[in-house]
């Protein structure tokens, strides 16, 4: 009898299906911590709304939305992913705004055995592996590729490349010391500052700007627009700034 009630409890407990007041925000991996804080702040000013955060590489989120995933807001880490969303008819173009900017940095493990002080040092034979996001689906990988191509280093570095599924995986590989160096956003490096060292800020041909938009055809359009406005408000900016994001 006890076993049966335990089983019933297991089947019924835990988070249920999305309810009407759930606002699903699909945000780039680099926004993980900042948007968690933004979501909490939004919930306190908008009681009754529950912000559900869905984080992954921007292109993965875009694919989900384009294939009909019930997201309400899309925040990506570069314009390419948002442009793809526009092309796929996945977002309401009129709601597209840039809300933050970031910097690309080169990081190494804290107790690195190989000295890397600049991107040019990645050419050394002692540097065996360099982590960055897969340029085909991860914005930080696209920024990395463009920056290294500009410096004439892409051929040399990509031969040592370990492709990560999102920016936080690159960060994790460097923090564990499995790679000799990696490219992440400045805000990501801060998350693990006790395990990785930032050795250089890498100039990118295009500035790193984060766009946000309301998903086309969402049932929560008003709430989604209100969330997007909150992200761009003074309060939203302050929270983003506390995680190292700069104004767009």
């Amino acid at each position, binding site marked *: 009898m006890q076993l049966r009630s335990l089983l019933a409890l297991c089947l019924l407990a835990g988070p249920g299906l999305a309810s009407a007041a759930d606002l699903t925000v699909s945000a780039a991996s680099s926004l993980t911590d900042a948007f968690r804080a933004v979501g909490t702040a939004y919930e306190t000013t908008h009681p009754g709304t529950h912000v559900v955060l869905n984080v992954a590489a921007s292109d993965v989120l875009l694919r989900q939305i384009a294939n009909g995933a019930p997201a309400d807001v899309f925040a990506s880490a570069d314009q390419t992913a948002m442009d793809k969303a526009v092309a796929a008819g996945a977002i309401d173009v009129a709601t597209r705004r840039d809300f933050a900017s970031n910097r690309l940095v080169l990081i190494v493990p804290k107790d690195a055995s190989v000295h890397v002080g600049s991107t040019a040092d990645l050419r050394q034979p002692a540097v065996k592996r360099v982590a960055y996001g897969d340029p*085909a689906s991860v914005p930080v990988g696209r920024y990395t590729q463009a920056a290294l191509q500009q410096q004439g280093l892409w051929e040399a570095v990509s031969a040592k490349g*370990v492709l990560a*599924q999102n920016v936080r995986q690159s960060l994790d590989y460097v923090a564990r010391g*499995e790679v000799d160096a990696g490219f992440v956003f400045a805000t990501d490096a801060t998350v693990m500052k006790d395990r990785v060292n930032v050795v250089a800020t890498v100039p990118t041909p295009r500035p790193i700007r984060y766009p946000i938009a309301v998903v086309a055809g969402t049932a929560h359009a008003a709430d989604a627009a209100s969330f997007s406005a909150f992200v761009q408000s003074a309060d939203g900016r302050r929270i983003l700034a506390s995680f190292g994001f700069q104004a767009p």
Partner: protein
Amino acid sequence: MGAAWIPLALSLKVALWATAINLVLGVAVAFGLSRWRSPARDVVDAVLTLPLVLPPTVLGYYLLVLLGRRGRVGAWLHELGVDLVFTWQGAVIAATLVAFPLVHKAARAAFEAVDPQLESAARVLGLREAAVFFRVSLPLAARGITAGVLLAFARALGEFGATLMIAGNLPGRTQTLSVAIYTAVQAGDDRSAALMVAVTSVTCVAVLLLAGRLAPDPVRRMRP
């Protein structure tokens, strides 16, 4: 088309190595356990079966923590100049681990089904223990072992979670078919994904048909 063959060749290489290792390891351990009389036997058996029920990500995490450059075993191997993370050998270890219980379970059941009287008769006729194993026990258990080995090959071929964690996603080096499909889907490259999915499906059907041909009754009965 060429893009699909490199991951396929790598997947086959990894799966064949993992199967070969499991054939030796799984049969040896299964034979040992089937003859071992101890209360600890069930515990050992449970631990060896764990890879079958644990999520591959859990196994991948264990492997990464153990074999990574800062892991207990990994740091020692690194001193010797051996790095397993982000190498195809790392993928072989992941595939071997997840497929091991399939060989082990099948082989143990097969050894336990061997009539002990036949082995005793061989001993009475003057055969040494090694000869009893290779000329009596092993041939009698061969059918069951073959079934397990074929399933292990299929499992190793499709391994994804633990492989991605320890071997990473290095095109041409550790990007197996499953990982390549995942990457193509994430990048929105449906054409490549569809091609590789088709290649995988055809390969698996071919393996099953081959299994049906090679393996006697026990596997044949598993065919639809």
